[in-house]
């Protein structure tokens, strides 16, 4: 079973009569401390929580009393991360308002803590928006990446030490004695980290930093004194949570992560398109810049090289057969879709996509293995099928190589030959979702039930992608996807994982390369 992180929940003191207020804000689930309330029949699910068990946390943020404690010129960050990292079995509660709502939710989510937020009614929409973002980003749980393990104890000095380590972005895993740990182990009160050092958190943090060495730190942050990072994952996929405790928008943040990750995808609440800039990858480290964000950003780092699907030239148009064995498809080299939208493995075989192009058309052929099919009854194939993506479907998102990356075309085909084509604008969505646009593309589908593979072929007019004179060597932005299975076990397949429950992430697209001559 895949384990997902814990998404914070609204702690709501008001009774069932407040359900319409919650519904209006888009909140469908709450935690209530009040026994005996009947939320049945409401469109809000209520979960009883024992409020006496909840440990109250301070509102996260920043205190600009510069120079406090005398050893630093940076603002004082009020973060609860250290407590959430240490007390993993404790449920927490925040009393927060305004901008603190998102920061508290992000703090709890990024640390994996079970947390509840008690907020004011005027902040319900903010909370709902934060939850929408977290749910979209929430994927299989990743392991923490840390530079060292810290043997903790219950002393106040230790709390200050942990607090400062977190604030210095020195990533650690709290551990208790007896401990088995393979990497660097810091045991306060012993060796160089003696009692004297432990009594001075600044000195302690400086010693730890020196011991690790800046070059070996898993995460470095440049361009802000008020952004804290948490890192999860492995050498294939890492996720960095970036929390801005300051009140200002972060106008450019440079992040360095240990590991080689050519694909960097950034998400931030409220930002529909947010492309990482100046990505630099060397043998052992990846750097990128987040151009701007407020409060919270998540960066997913993918070790896979950005995908390129080569489309083979064809002198003439050819009949749609949905058959990879035909001569014109046999020579086309496929690209493989073998990962989920979150980059994980799939419960069925790998999907292959081949492409050819002519002077006027782009052809795509999907070969989609399946265990079972989720098909729409009464299929219609002579016009668009709205919301076709609620059934098994293969999709291609194709955009012009230049211009607004948030604008592109979407072409879908089902195993039964249903289709829908859409004119997409991610930042300014069309009122009808773009379904009013028609590309004039043609499709052919075929199900081989014996082999448990369905095939879908598209002939897309090149002019529908962009009114250009396409020539060999030209490139397009391309996303290839598949949705398989019936709810609630739908599998989202992505050629270039977006690491969220959404394919409409143009920053994640790969490239279609027109090869050959024309």
């Amino acid at each position, binding site marked *: 079973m895949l384990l997902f992180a814990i998404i914070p929940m609204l702690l709501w003191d008001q009774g069932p009569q407040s359900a319409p207020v919650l519904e209006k804000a888009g909140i469908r689930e709450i935690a209530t401390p009040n026994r005996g309330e009947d939320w049945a029949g409401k469109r809000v699910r209520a979960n009883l929580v024992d409020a006496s068990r909840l440990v109250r946390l301070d509102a996260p943020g920043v205190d600009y009393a510069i120079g406090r404690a005398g050893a630093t*010129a*940076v603002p004082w960050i009020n973060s609860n991360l250290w407590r959430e990292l240490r007390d993993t079995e404790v449920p927490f509660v925040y009393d927060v308002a305004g901008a603190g709502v998102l920061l508290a939710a992000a703090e709890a989510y990024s640390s994996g803590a079970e947390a509840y937020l008690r907020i004011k009614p005027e902040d319900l929409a903010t909370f709902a928006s934060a939850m929408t973002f977290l749910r979209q980003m929430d994927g299989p749980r990743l392991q923490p990446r840390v530079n060292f393990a810290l043997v903790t104890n219950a002393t106040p000095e230790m709390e200050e030490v942990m607090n400062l380590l977190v604030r210095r972005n020195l990533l650690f895993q709290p551990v208790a004695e007896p401990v088995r740990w393979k990497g660097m182990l810091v045991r306060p009160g012993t060796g160089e980290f003696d009692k004297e050092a432990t009594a001075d958190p600044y000195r302690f943090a400086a010693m730890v930093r020196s011991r690790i060495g*800046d070059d070996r730190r898993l995460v*470095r942050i440049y361009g802000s004194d008020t952004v804290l990072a948490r890192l999860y994952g492995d050498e294939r996929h890492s996720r960095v949570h970036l929390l801005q405790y300051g009140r200002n928008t972060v106008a450019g943040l*440079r992040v360095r992560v240990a590991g080689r990750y050519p694909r960097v995808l950034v998400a931030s609440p409220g930002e529909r398109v947010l492309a990482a800039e100046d990505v*630099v990858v060397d043998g052992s*480290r990846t750097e990128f810049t987040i151009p701007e964000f407020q409060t919270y950003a998540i960066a997913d780092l993918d070790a896979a090289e950005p995908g390129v699907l080569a489309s083979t030239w064809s002198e003439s148009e050819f009949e749609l057969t949905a058959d990879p064995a035909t001569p014109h498809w046999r020579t086309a080299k496929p690209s493989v879709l073998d990962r989920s939208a979150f980059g994980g493995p799939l419960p069925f075989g790998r999907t292959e996509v081949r492409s050819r192009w002519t002077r006027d058309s782009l052809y795509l052929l999907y070969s989609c293995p399946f265990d079972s099919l989720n098909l729409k009854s009464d299929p219609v194939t002579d016009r668009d099928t709205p919301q076709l993506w609620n059934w098994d479907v293969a999709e291609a998102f194709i955009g012009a190589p230049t211009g607004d990356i948030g604008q592109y075309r979407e072409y879908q085909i089902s195993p039964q030959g249903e289709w829908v084509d859409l004119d997409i604008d991610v930042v300014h969505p069309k009122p009808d979702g773009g379904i009013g646009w028609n590309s004039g593309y043609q499709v052919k589908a075929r199900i081989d039930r014996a082999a448990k593979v369905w095939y879908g072929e598209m002939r897309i007019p090149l002019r529908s992608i962009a009114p250009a004179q396409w020539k060999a060597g030209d490139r397009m932005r391309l996303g290839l996807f598949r949705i398989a299975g019936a709810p609630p076990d739908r599998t989202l397949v992505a050629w270039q994982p977006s690491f969220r429950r959404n394919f409409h992430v143009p920053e994640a697209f790969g490239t279609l390369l027109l090869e050959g001559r024309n």
Partner: protein
Amino acid sequence: MNRRALLQLPFAGPLLAAPHNDLPAYRVVTDYQPAQQPGMPGRYAGQVVSVHSPHSIDEPTGMADAATVDQMLARGMTALTGHADAASAWRSFFNASDVVGVKVNCSGAPQVCSNPVVVGAVVRNLIACGIEPRNIYIYERFLDQLTSPGYPKYVPEGVHVTAIEVPRRSIRGYDPRTYVEVDFFGEDDTRSNLARLVTGTFTKIVNVPNMKDHGAAGVTGCLKNITYGNFSNVARSHREEKTNTLSFIGTLASVEPLRSKTVLHVMDGLKGVWHGGPFVRDPKFVFYPKTITVGTDPVAIDHQLLDVIEGERRKRGAVSVWDRGPEHLSEKRSLDPNFNPFIREPGHIEFAARQGLGVYDAAKIRHTRIEVA
């Protein structure tokens, strides 16, 4: 300059050997190679030309006289280059294909900054070299400082007046691949990045600093203006009474392509600040050298600046910029010229000389003084 293979070098810059054990360890990361003849110290190493005119600025109003400034600049440039006329002298540095950054100093604006009359004269000379106005950028790090001098009124339409860091603390105006990495005081952000304008837009830079005392560096002239005014995250070099300007300024000035592209320094000394710099904390610290100094060697020019500031302070009975006595340290008494928040580091100029940025030895500097009536 050749841009070396991307993706390989940003993590592989050389670690500069600290000349003294107590100096910070710097790591310079850049993809750029030096030009065959780097702009600093340039063609006229060890040469300084100072042009003085009593009519260059009206002290009561603070208004510069454009005609006199033009004449001073022309005399300075011809004396520096040996060319018969100013146009030829400017053309020996710039041609029509250049994209030129004019690095002004606005930290003391509006009272003491790169005077717009001087900047206007520099821009006119650049345009006379055939450079289109749209290829000239008057620039400074911070927009709020750049606004008050009103440069657009003094230059033709099309000339850019632009700030690197908008808003303050934004790193987007800086090149993520070109930086100096150093840990001064245990700060976590250990990088100072060079402006993208310098790495990606300009082919050459004219540096237009002022004549000012500086609470940390001792003086702020060519070297301080071209470095702390082009790199991010530099204020971290000072903490409490300690400042690392001694070695940081020269290190930053040595970074390519800044060193190669900075081909000319025009020090605006119409007005100066003899204490409390780089800001103008009190008008009583303003003085009027009425001088424009030109050269390609920032070290040689700044050495004469040291003499000017030190001389003015001596005249006013203030302690020397070289004074390191703890009894003269006070952040709260900055309006008293015998107190300073930092131990000043005027030795940064000699340090820069050791980095190959110019000539510090007074005996080897040829200082030409010209008087314009």
